[in-house]
C-alpha cells in the first residue's frame, strides 16, 4: 500500500445506494478514499486511464445500465494490470446464478446489500479490514458469500 489509506471504489447506478455507501464510510472513521462511478462504462474508462491509481477494493453492483457488473468483472480479470484489485460484488439479489457466475469469474467476495444501515457499516468495515491475501487463499463457494 503506497498511501496510508485504503482506496475504495464503488460502481453503482442507484443514487440512494451510493449515498448510503458514502455516508457509511464517513461514519466509519477508517482512513479511506472513496470514489463513486454511476455505471460500468464510467468505471472502466477511469480504470483504463494509463498510470491511474488503482483501487484496493472495488465494489461492483451487478445490475447497471450500459455495462453490467459481470461484464466489468470479466474485463478486469482479463487485464493483468488489475490483478491486485480485490473485487467485492455488491448486489441487491443473491440468486444462485449470480453468485455462481461471479465466483467463477474470479470475484473475491459477494455482498448482498443489507436493509439496515448498522449492518451496512459493519459489512463495509469488515470488508475493508479483511486480510485479502488470507481470504483469497482459503476462498471457496461457501465463504464467498459474505454472511453476517
Amino acid at each position: 500500500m503506497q498511501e496510508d489509506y485504503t482506496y475504495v471504489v464503488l460502481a453503482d447506478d442507484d443514487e440512494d445506494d451510493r449515498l448510503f455507501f458514502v455516508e457509511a464510510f464517513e461514519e466509519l472513521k477508517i482512513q479511506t478514499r472513496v470514489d463513486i462511478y454511476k455505471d460500468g462504462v464510467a468505471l472502466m474508462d477511469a480504470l483504463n486511464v494509463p498510470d491511474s491509481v488503482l483501487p484496493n477494493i472495488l465494489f461492483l453492483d451487478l445490475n447497471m445500465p450500459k455495462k453490467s457488473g459481470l461484464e466489468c468483472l470479466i474485463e478486469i480479470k482479463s487485464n493483468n494490470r488489475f490483478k491486485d484489485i480485490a473485487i467485492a460484488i455488491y448486489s441487491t439479489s443473491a440468486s444462485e446464478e449470480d453468485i455462481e457466475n461471479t465466483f467463477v469469474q474470479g470475484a473475491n467476495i459477494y455482498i448482498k446489500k443489507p436493509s439496515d444501515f448498522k449492518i451496512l457499516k459493519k459489512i463495509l468495515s469488515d470488508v475493508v479490514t479483511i486480510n485479502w491475501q488470507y481470504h483469497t487463499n482459503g476462498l471457496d463457494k461457501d465463504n464467498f458469500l459474505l454472511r453476517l
Partner: protein
Amino acid sequence: MMPFKSIYYSERFLKIIFGFSLFMVLVMGGIAYKHIRQLSRSTADVQHNYEVHLELEKLLSALKDAESGKRGFIISRDSTFLEPLLLSSLELDKNMEHLKFLTKDNPEQQKNIAELKAKIVKSLDIFKKTLDLAATDNLNSPEFIAGFREGRQTMNSVRFKIIEMTTHESDVLGTSKEKSSKNISNTPMLLYYVLILSLLILLLTYLQNSKNLKVLKEKNELLETFKKSTTQSEIISKHGNWIWHIEENTFEYSDNLYRLLGEEPQSFEANLANYMDFVHPDDVDKLTEQVNKMMENEDLPFIHYRIIQKNGSIKHFKAYGKLLIDSDGHKKILGTTADITDEIENYRLIEKRNLELERSNKELSSFNYVASHDLQEPLRKIQTFLSRLEEKEQDHLSNNGKVYIERIKSSSTRMRSLIDDLLQFSRTNRSEEALEDSNINILLETAKHDLVEIISDKRARISSDFIPSMKVIPFQIKQLFLNLMSNSLKYSRELTAPVITITYSQTKASDLPKIKYSKHNLYHTITVKDNGIGFDQDYAEKIFILFNRLHNKNEYSGTGIGLSICKKIVENHNGYITAEGDINNGSIFTIYLPLS
C-alpha cells in the same frame, strides 16, 4: 396354416389319384375294345365257315342233282332229266369261283379246291361219256359199265373231298373258336376287377374331397369373419388397405380407402392416376417419386402426404407397403394407408400449448427476477432509511412517531419475508440434472446451523437418527429440513422448550394407502416430530396449501408459504408428505421418498 398345408398336399394326392383313375379307365376301354374286336372277328370266322360249308353243300347237291339226272335219263331216256345237269355245270363254275374267293386266305383249302375242281371236271367228263353211250343205247357195252363205275368212283372221291374240306374248315373254326373263347371268358372278370378298383379309388377320392371341403368351409368362415373384423378395424382406426399386383400392374382398394378419400366405396376404378387426383398438389411430386421407387424396389417405406377430398378438406395420410409372394409365386405389395389428420392436429395443438407454456414459463421467470431484484430494492431502501431515521433522528421524534416507525418496520420485515418465501417457492423446481448422491445427515446439520440462533434462544433440543444417503437435490432437502424445523420452533408452546425428534425408517409402498400402486416398492421414511402447539387434524391437508395459515399473523409470524415449499420439494423427489396434529401436544410431519 396346417390344414391349408394338408389341403395343398391332398390336392397333389388327388391329382395322382385322378391320373391313375384316368389310366385305369383307358386300360379298361382298351381291353374292352380289343375283346369286342376279337368277338366280332370270331363271329366273322363262323360266318365264313358257314358260307364255305354252304357253298360246298351246294356244290355237292349240284353234283348229286347231276348224278340223279343222269340216272333218271338212263332209265327213262327222257332228256328232261338232263336239264339239271346242264344247269349244274354252270352253277358249279360259279360255286367254284365263290369258294376260291372265300378261302383265298387258306392255302390248304385252295389246294383242295384245285383238286376238287380237277375231280369235278373229270367227273363231268365221265358224265358226258356215259351219257353219250347211253344215248347210242350201248347200255350193255362194257365201256358203258366201266364208265358208269368210274363215274360213281369219281363222284365218291368228289364227295370225300368235299367232306374233307368241310372237316378242315370246321377244324379251322374250332381252333380259332377255342382261342377266342379262352380270351373272352377272361374279359368280364378282368373288367369287373378293374371296375371295383376304380370305384374304390373314386370312393377314396370322394372321402378326401369331402374332408377337404369341410376344412375349406371352416377356413372360409374364418376368412369371412376376419374380413369383417378387418373392415371394422379399418373404419375405427381410420385406415384403408390396398394391394398392388405387380405382374399385372393392377390395384385393389379396400372400401375404407375410398371412404378416407371422402368417396363411396368402389366408386371409381382403382388405379394410380385416379388416386393421384386426390393428392395435394404440393405433395404429388413427392408421392410420385415414392411410388416410382416402390415400383423399382418392390417395397414402400413409410411415407407421409396430404390429400384433398372433393369437399375441400385436407387430410394427412401415412402409407406403408410390404412385398408378399403368394403360394403361386405371384408378387404383390400389401399396403396400408392411414388417416393421421387427428394425430397431426393433436400434435400441433400440443406443440402450440408447449409454446404457450414455454412463454408463460419465461414470463414467470422474468417475474421472478422482478420480484427478486426490483421489488426488493425499494423495500431494502425503505428499511435502510428507517434504520437511518432510528439512529440519527431518534431524538427528534415524538413517542407516537417512534411507534409509527416500529409499525412500518414490522410491516416491511413481513413484506421482506413474504418476498423471500415466494421467491423460494417459485425457485423450487424439479430438474433431473440437479439430483446427486447426498449425505442427508450433513444437509440436516447445515439446516440446523442456519437456525442456531433461534435454537439457542428457545433452548430447543433436536435429535436425529442416522439417515442413509440418497439421490436428491441437496439445497432443496436442506430447505425442507430448515422449513420443517423452523416451523416446529415457531409454533412451540410458551414456557416449554421445544424438542424436535427426527427419525428414519423404511416403509413398504403396499403399507401406504396413498401410494399403494407406486412403481417403487420401498420408501425412505423421515419423520419430524415436535412438542409444539400442534393443530387440528381436520386441517392436516390444508396446511400445505399456499398462503394457508392456521393462526393469526399477529400471534405467529408466518407467510403460509413454508409448508407449501416443503410439499413442492418432496413432490419434486417423487415422494409425499403428511402431517398429523394433536392440539397442545405437537405435530408430526412424515416425508416419504422413494428408495431407488
